[in-house]
């Protein structure tokens, strides 16, 4: 572990987590009653520069602007697509975001993205009163044309990414696959070898199952090495990272 260890404690709904501080940011996971603060979820409580933060251990994906998500095209409309992002809210992608120009009247958008396509996108805006809007402007965003996508619980994405991206880099470095973790719990991977893909999927589910095992990153690393029977990453992985 390169980062200094932080103390996290398990909290449950109704648990007293602290007193009202000067600059406690709003969070759905902490409520105020009088001058006391209580947890509203099953989560891990941690102190981050004078702020109490609760990382929920269960729950659905709640979109935030700027999040990288992997969406599934659900419907093709006249000027854009409705996209499932495994959230209580259906997202929308405007045609112009993909095409880089306005959609022509009568243009068949199915030619660009059809029902069942996966896209890599960023959440552009979301304010609870309207659906989340997606954007595919940017490097690496757009239609996913190769590789594989697996679904995990969205509350596990911080663990899949790891502190300073340590976990995701271990996963891709050790298996030689490209790996991208969407904040909504969808993980995209692109592997050269079938056996590394299978192993990668297995590791992702392992992390989902036991996210807070001590020394998980090391465990994952040694498991991959053991199974692939090599002690160095393959050449294509080095090229990718």
């Amino acid at each position: 572990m390169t980062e200094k260890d932080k103390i996290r404690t398990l909290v449950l709904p109704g648990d007293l987590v602290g007193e009202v501080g000067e600059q406690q940011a709003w969070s759905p996971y902490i409520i105020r009653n009088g001058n006391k603060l209580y947890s509203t979820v099953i989560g891990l409580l941690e102190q981050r520069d004078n702020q109490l933060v609760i990382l929920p251990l269960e729950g659905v994906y709640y979109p935030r602007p700027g999040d990288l998500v992997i969406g599934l095209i659900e419907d093709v409309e006249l000027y854009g697509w409705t996209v499932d992002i495994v959230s209580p809210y259906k997202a929308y992608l405007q045609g112009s975001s993909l095409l880089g120009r306005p959609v022509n009247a009568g243009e068949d958008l199915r030619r660009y993205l059809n029902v069942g396509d996966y896209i890599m996108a960023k959440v552009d805006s979301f304010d609870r009163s309207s659906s989340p809007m997606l954007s595919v402007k940017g490097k690496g965003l757009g239609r996913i044309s190769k590789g594989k996508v697996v679904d995990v619980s969205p509350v596990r994405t911080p663990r899949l990414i790891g502190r300073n991206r340590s976990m995701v880099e271990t996963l891709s470095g050790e298996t030689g696959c490209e790996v991208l973790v969407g904040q909504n719990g969808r993980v995209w991977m692109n592997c050269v070898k079938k056996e590394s893909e299978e192993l990668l999927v297995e590791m992702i589910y392992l992390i989902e199952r036991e996210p807070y095992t001590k020394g998980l990153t090391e465990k994952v690393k040694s498991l991959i090495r053991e199974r692939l029977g090599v002690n160095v990453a393959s050449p294509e992985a080095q090229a990718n990272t």
Partner: protein
Amino acid sequence: MLTLQVQKPKLILEDGRRTDGRRPDEMRPIKMEVGILKNANGSAIVEMGKTKVLTAVYGPREMHPRHLALPDRTVMRVRYHMTPFSTDDRKNPSLSRREIEISKVIREALEAAVLAETFPRTTIDVFSEVLQADAGTRLVALMSASLAVADAGIPMRDLIAGVAVGKADGTLVLDLNEEEDMWGEADMPIAMMPSLSQVTLLQLNGNFTPEEFRAAIQLASKGIEELYKLQKETLTSKYSAYKEVN
């Protein structure tokens, strides 16, 4: 002359104990478990004596039909239902008036806890199935629902714990059994969010003097504290691996 009528049994025995051997302030054995269903977002099963209720929570998810969605909050949909084989005589599976009323009081109790404004335009579905009915089903259902909501990761002010207090042969008794439910003089289900000291469900069936009413609340509060502790232990044990984390 027909004498079909069953005579009321003695509910408090010579030694001051109840028909099932409990002291008046003693609850039945309790078992709780969370996360037992795969498909639901959250689930829990709670047993209190021979009463057993399973609850599944789906959501928050998109509301269908859409016009029923609310712009500023989630819509809670709650169904309390007894399986036909949960009772001595088979229960008709269609919703009875009793089940309709209980679904409503459970919904209102849960709404007091759930932070509904967090998920506008969505729905949270709570389905409670009474698998065994042996007194106290609405509170066991409510407790399992509250655990299932927590298990689904839905933000809530507190867990909800509840128990019935009644009167049997003039004595206040905690957590009625079926005989006391049937023959006792009062049955008062009460549920609270204990860490906030708020009552979320209260009904009374039977009669109390004002003094008995106040004593009954005191007695219930004691039971509720105990149940709340058990609920927390149940959740903690599921996540005990997470207690020591880096």
